[in-house]
């Protein structure tokens, strides 16, 4: 079994941002509100996040006298396994025995723990080094305590598994025996710490579960620390916190963003057994930001009574208050954007002479792609409890961004941040939905009405899908020129979608740096003339981030179009894609006009064409690319880099005469650099594959008269077992090398939909340019 190279550096990087322009103008305001900006202007990675990083052992590690090691996890656990993986890092560096390690969830406290915003696939790459330093510090304190007790120089002792040994005499003291004396020692300087060599590591980089179905790699350690609680029903999610005297609320929210309650008749609702109180609550002024939408709250002594009470309400909505939003028809808007895409827009990147390239083309092809609105739809709908008592608030909620939730509660109740205690529960999925704390703020508002009693706001699935922070609709128009040999000479891409910026400020109508930087301006192909444009598009509902965000439409369009170019050139798609990528080389993001680079140092994290080529080559090789297939069967390939990781996927797909799509196998090659917990990396890629198939096949929320048409899983379809590939094989590339760590939770998703559409084309000759596939094959 291999272990990763020791890439740990003791000092955190602190270099100036390479593009100061990022901090200028509206981009900064937006970014600051998303926590994407720089707490300490000029830092990258964890140091660039609000609250930064913390590596004090006392904050993250506690050792009891019985030897139990408790590791504090301060990131949100939503299925990515971070409670396991970060604890493994600390346990390994500390020398703890995993069987004697507990993981305790931190409360929201950015001052104490550093940044807790679990978003952007950042947890491991930002916290690997601080956690190792914290654990190395704790280990040193244990060694110092032992040396002191024995009266020997600290150099003569070392830590083995859960004990410290005097090398000369082989005397040992267990962690528990040393806990009290070690705890009172001074925390060692970071500079004085030495981290373990790779050969000394026991957990980091090791497999803990089956590898592509092969159980032989299982070393007996359960893949995830919460597994047993989950399978026995004991795991506590936001919805599972039960408090004495608790009230249960559901809210009837305006069906159109910005609409208000015009009149309310709650006579019948009040008659529902168990209903305690009904009242209107003000919606936020636009832009909506993280504020509640308002509406009518029904508070009851159980959830069912609240749901029934709400159903019995008679509400007339003032739709005119929603302005233009009330006229929003997503199907019409698609056509509007498609028409607009025919004209030039704001230039984002311009290399070479696109006009000449197009004029002189031996062959020109053009295609326009559409991706619809989607709801994140975590399987646990939003839910939160707030209790206001004696001027202090206590909250329980499944949130990706605990600090924002805590801030929201404090602002709503008019109390200090320090008077808010937020208990982070497990999240029943997040996917970006739970980084917006609107549902927690709703509970805070209701708590104000019932001082001394905890109030839970429960979202139903209808609430969740109708009032999501929707993935933006996107129209992407591409045009390419090919020379007489089919080689690409020009590439013109216009992308149009509303910006998430519209959530926080006056609608910018253009994508921000961090939105363009998600695979649009970083389009890596080696083509002499490239022009990238971003014409206007307005938002008509709440737009928010969804797992992988704008990488989804960008990858869908670019990776579909690359396959269309290959077909136009009469070439094999893989060979053509490799030709488009060009020679292995590392490109500074600035060359792509990308000043964001996911917040990472462009010198450590350049755009690496070599890594792209490698994942393409690996995925196609593993899939048996090029093998003849039966009629109605085809392989599709796509590659995308995002969150400073690289993913390529090949799907082997069958389309029957009724247009039913069966995915027989997925081969995913993934390079996130060093993988701390390969089994959980693999599980993320498997999940992304299934979610991506759903995005391609059937996930859409459409709008009529400003209102979401699909309201539950009977309308907004997410993948079922029959949609999943019969087999998913994940091939980790570079996992034990010394490439810098990249993201894991999101980057597997963007290439899935284009790979599926490319496979459908290979199987049927039909090109899908509008998602979802739906009944287009029937």
């Amino acid at each position, binding site marked *: 079994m291999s272990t990763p190279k020791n890439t740990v550096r003791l000092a955190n990087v602190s270099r100036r941002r390479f593009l100061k322009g990022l901090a200028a103008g509206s981009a900064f305001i937006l970014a600051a509100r998303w926590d994407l900006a720089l707490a300490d202007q000029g830092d990258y990675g964890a140091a660039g996040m609000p609250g930064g990083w913390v590596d004090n052992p006392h904050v993250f590690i506690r050792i009891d006298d019985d030897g139990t090691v408790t590791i504090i996890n301060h990131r949100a656990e939503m299925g990515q396994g971070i409670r396991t993986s970060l604890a493994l890092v600390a346990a390994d560096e500390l020398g703890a025995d995993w069987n004697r390690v507990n993981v305790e969830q931190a409360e929201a406290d950015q001052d104490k723990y550093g940044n807790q915003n679990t978003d952007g696939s950042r947890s491991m790459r930002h916290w690997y080094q601080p956690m190792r330093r914290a654990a190395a510090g704790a280990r040193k304190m244990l060694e110092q305590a032992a040396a002191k007790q024995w009266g020997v120089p600290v150099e003569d002792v070392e830590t083995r598994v859960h004990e410290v040994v005097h090398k000369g005499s082989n005397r040992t003291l267990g962690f528990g025996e040393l806990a009290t004396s070690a705890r009172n020692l001074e925390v060692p300087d970071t500079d004085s710490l030495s981290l373990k060599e790779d050969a000394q590591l026991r957990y980091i980089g090791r497999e803990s579960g089956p590898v592509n179905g092969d159980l032989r790699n299982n070393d007996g350690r359960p893949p995830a620390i919460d597994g047993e609680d*989950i399978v*026995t029903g004991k795991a506590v999610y936001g919805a599972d916190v039960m408090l004495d005297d608790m009230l249960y609320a559901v809210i009837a929210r305006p069906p159109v963003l910005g609409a208000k309650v015009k009149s309310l008749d709650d006579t019948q609702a009040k008659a529902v057994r168990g209903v305690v109180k009904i009242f209107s609550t003000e919606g936020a002024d636009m832009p909506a930001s993280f504020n509640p939408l308002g509406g009518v709250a029904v508070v009851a002594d159980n959830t069912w009574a609240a749901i029934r009470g709400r159903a019995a309400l008679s509400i007339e909505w003032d739709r005119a208050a929603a302005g233009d939003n009330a006229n929003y028809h997503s199907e019409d808007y698609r056509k509007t954007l498609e028409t607009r895409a025919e004209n030039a827009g704001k230039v984002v990147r311009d290399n070479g002479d696109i006009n000449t390239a197009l004029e002189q083309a031996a062959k020109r092809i053009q295609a326009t792609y559409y991706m619809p609105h989607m709801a994140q739809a975590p*399987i646990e709908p939003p839910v939160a409890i707030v209790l206001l008592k004696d001027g202090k608030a206590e909250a329980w909620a499944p949130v990706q961004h605990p600090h924002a939730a805590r801030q929201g509660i404090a602002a709503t109740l008019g109390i200090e941040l320090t008077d808010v205690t937020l208990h982070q529960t*497990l999240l029943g999925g997040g996917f970006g939905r739970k980084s917006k704390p609107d549902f927690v703020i709703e509970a805070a508002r209701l708590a104000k009405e019932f001082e001394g009693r905890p109030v839970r706001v429960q979202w139903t699935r209808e609430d969740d899908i109708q009032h999501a922070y929707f993935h933006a609709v996107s129209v992407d128009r591409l045009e390419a020129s090919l020379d007489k040999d089919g080689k690409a000479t020009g590439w013109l891409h216009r992308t149009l979608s509303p910006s998430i910026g519209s959530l926080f400020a006056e609608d910018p109508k253009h994508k921000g740096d961090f939105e363009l930087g998600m695979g649009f301006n970083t389009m890596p192909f080696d083509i002499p003339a490239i022009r990238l444009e971003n014409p206007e598009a307005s938002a008509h509902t709440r737009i928010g981030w969804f797992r992988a965000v704008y990488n989804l439409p960008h990858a869908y369009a670019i990776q579909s179009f690359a396959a269309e170019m290959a077909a136009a050139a009469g070439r094999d798609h893989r060979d053509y894609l490799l030709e488009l990528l060009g020679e292995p080389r590392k490109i500074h993001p600035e060359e792509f006009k990308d000043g964001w680079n996911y917040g990472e140092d462009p010198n450590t994290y350049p755009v690496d064409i070599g890594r792209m080529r490698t994942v393409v080559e690996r995925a196609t090789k593993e899939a048996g690319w090029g093998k003849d297939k039966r009629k109605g069967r085809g392989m599709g390939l796509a590659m995308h880099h995002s969150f400073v990781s690289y993913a390529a996927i090949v799907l082997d797909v069958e389309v029957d005469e009724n247009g039913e799509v069966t995915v027989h196998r997925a081969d995913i090659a993934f390079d996130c650099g060093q993988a701390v917990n390969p089994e*959980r990396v693999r599980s993320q890629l498997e999940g*992304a594959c299934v979610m991506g198939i759903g995005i391609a096949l059937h996930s859409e929320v459409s709008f009529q008269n400003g209102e979401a048409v699909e309201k539950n899983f009977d309308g907004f379809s997410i993948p079922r077992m029959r949609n999943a590939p019969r087999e998913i094989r994940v091939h980790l590339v570079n996992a034990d090398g010394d490439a810098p760590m990249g993201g894991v939770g999101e980057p597997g998703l963007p290439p899935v939909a284009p790979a599926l559409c490319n496979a459908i084309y290979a199987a049927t000759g039909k090109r899908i340019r509008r998602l979802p596939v739906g009944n287009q094959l029937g």
Partner: protein
Amino acid sequence: MINLDINGQKHELDIPADMPLLWALRDIVKLTGTKFGCGIAQCGACTVHLDGEATRSCVTPVSSAEGKKVTTIEAMAEDEVGQRVQQAWLNLGVAQCGYCQGGQIMSATALLKANNRPNSTDIHNAMNGNLCRCGTYNRIVSAIEQAALAKEVKA
């Protein structure tokens, strides 16, 4: 009064007859392993056994559960088949966020009790009503197959 037999315990509950079993279990009896996901029997997160049959508790009025044995995920650790299913789930690291997995395990256990050697079609038919937003379906299939084989080895 509604009389329910939940995991072998009798409960006399002062609740409306039309309250879905899901909310009675969660809010009244405080058994929170059974989850709310959709409220319209589309996702299966609320799956329990009624006299051994996998049932969506979110659309089952408590009145229709009277006189039947209600079994929830909390009782699976005491159930021979349930234990095997849980162990297979752990062996294969099925769960990601885990929220739907109680319902998945209830459906899988009901399947294996009725059919101890399910083929792929049987598994898909029994499990297609259980959604997993994290996308753990492949491992669910593998875990059911493993749990079924564990039965054969024992027998």
